[in-house]
């Protein structure tokens, strides 16, 4: 065994007085090792000082003569009911909960008031340098809703291949147009034949793009001229939103 390990075990044995027949190798080592003797001797000395320090804490101190009177008075006082004890205990918990709720509420109100967006932050996933460059350049693009990011990335890739300028992201605006057919007017008391339907149409506009990018060979999406300036949903009175 190494001296350091023996010394550690010796300290343990000496502190708790656990020397026994199995400790003979340790004692043999102790007899011949000045360093271990110093360590164990120092530990014993420190314990002696520790006892002195602890005794000094209480030396000459005793409870005052009025302690018994106070105890007797309190012991004879009626014990508080369990309801009061429960209320006292729960008051602290409630106070803490109140503070936490106020903080959370303030944070939420701040979030809503500033119209902030919580975006998960993640590091670069790929090891490719070009991907890193792409991610860096993407950070310069004005923030778009999450669903459009992939589209912009696709356009960026195509533009880089062509050596063209960076397209204006506003030119690739995605528009969600909601057309909601009005509910059928009840002309009779009979059952309604058709259910009210809601139509959602996603239109990709590229009106201002200098170099419109086609992502596939399919025909470009049809732009409904009547829907180029769609009224805001629910702007007309009487229309259900």
């Amino acid at each position, binding site marked *: 065994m190494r001296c350091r390990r023996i010394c550690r075990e010796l300290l343990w044995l000496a502190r708790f007085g656990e*020397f026994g027949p199995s400790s*003979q190798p340790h004692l043999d080592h102790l007899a011949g090792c000045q360093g271990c003797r110093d360590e164990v001797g120092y530990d*014993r000395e420190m314990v002696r000082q520790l006892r002195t320090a602890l005794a000094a*804490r209480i030396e000459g101190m005793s*409870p005052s003569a009025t302690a*018994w009177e*106070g*105890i007797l008075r309190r012991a004879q006082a009626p014990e508080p009911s369990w309801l009061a004890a429960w209320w006292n205990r729960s008051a602290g918990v409630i106070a803490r909960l109140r503070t936490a709720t106020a903080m959370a509420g303030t944070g939420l109100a701040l979030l809503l008031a500033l119209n902030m967006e919580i975006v998960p932050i993640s590091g670069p996933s790929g090891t490719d340098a070009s991907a890193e460059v792409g991610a860096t350049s993407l950070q310069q693009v004005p923030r778009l809703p999450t669903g459009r990011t992939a589209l912009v990335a696709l356009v960026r890739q195509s533009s880089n291949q062509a050596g063209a300028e960076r397209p204006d992201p506003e030119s690739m605006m995605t528009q969600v147009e909601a057309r909601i057919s009005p509910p059928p007017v009840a002309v009779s008391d009979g059952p309604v034949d058709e259910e009210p339907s809601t139509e959602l149409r996603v239109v990709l506009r590229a009106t201002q793009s200098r170099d419109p990018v086609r992502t596939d060979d399919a025909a470009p999406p049809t732009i409904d001229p009547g829907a180029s300036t769609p009224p805001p949903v629910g702007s007309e009175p009487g229309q259900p939103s």
Partner: protein
Amino acid sequence: MAQVPVEARQPDDLVERMQGGDLDAFEEFFNTFKRPVYATALAITRDPFLAEEVLQDCFVKAYRVRERLDPSRSPLPWLHRVTINLCYSRVSRRKSLAEPITSLITNLVVDLAARPDQVVESREVLEVLQRGIDALPPKQQTAIILYYLHGYSLAESAEIADCNVGTMKSRLHYALKALRVRLPVERRIPVGAPAAVKVSTR
């Protein structure tokens, strides 16, 4: 060195009489156990007024739950446990923890280096130890107070601290280790170390 008696003797029927509502028995109970309880409270808090508050709380609680005390066993371990819990709840409420001791240790090293022949029990070293005890985690502090101040055995200390003997040993070991680190390097070499070790190979 003043050491608290390990076991305060109690009349056999003291707890039974107290359970019957005898206030004289309660006073006797208080006089029998007040010293070790107060010593524990004072050793932990180092504040006589706070220690007395803890003492009062402890005995009031003992009176209120007297029906649950076992007359066949000494109530002292239970009293110690209640005292320790009360002390730490109050100390944590007051947030009275020890201040950093780095500057003190630095001064000590310089001081002791200037006069290496000074005795081991210097006031400064004791002060370092006191601050080191204050800075120990509560469980380690409890362990050294029970074992080194009250002189309880490992088993008794473990019973009071509500842990097993191995855990108590571990707490003592780490407490001593932490205290040792706090002492200045010069003091780690004992004066007359070989003479301090007396081992029996029997």
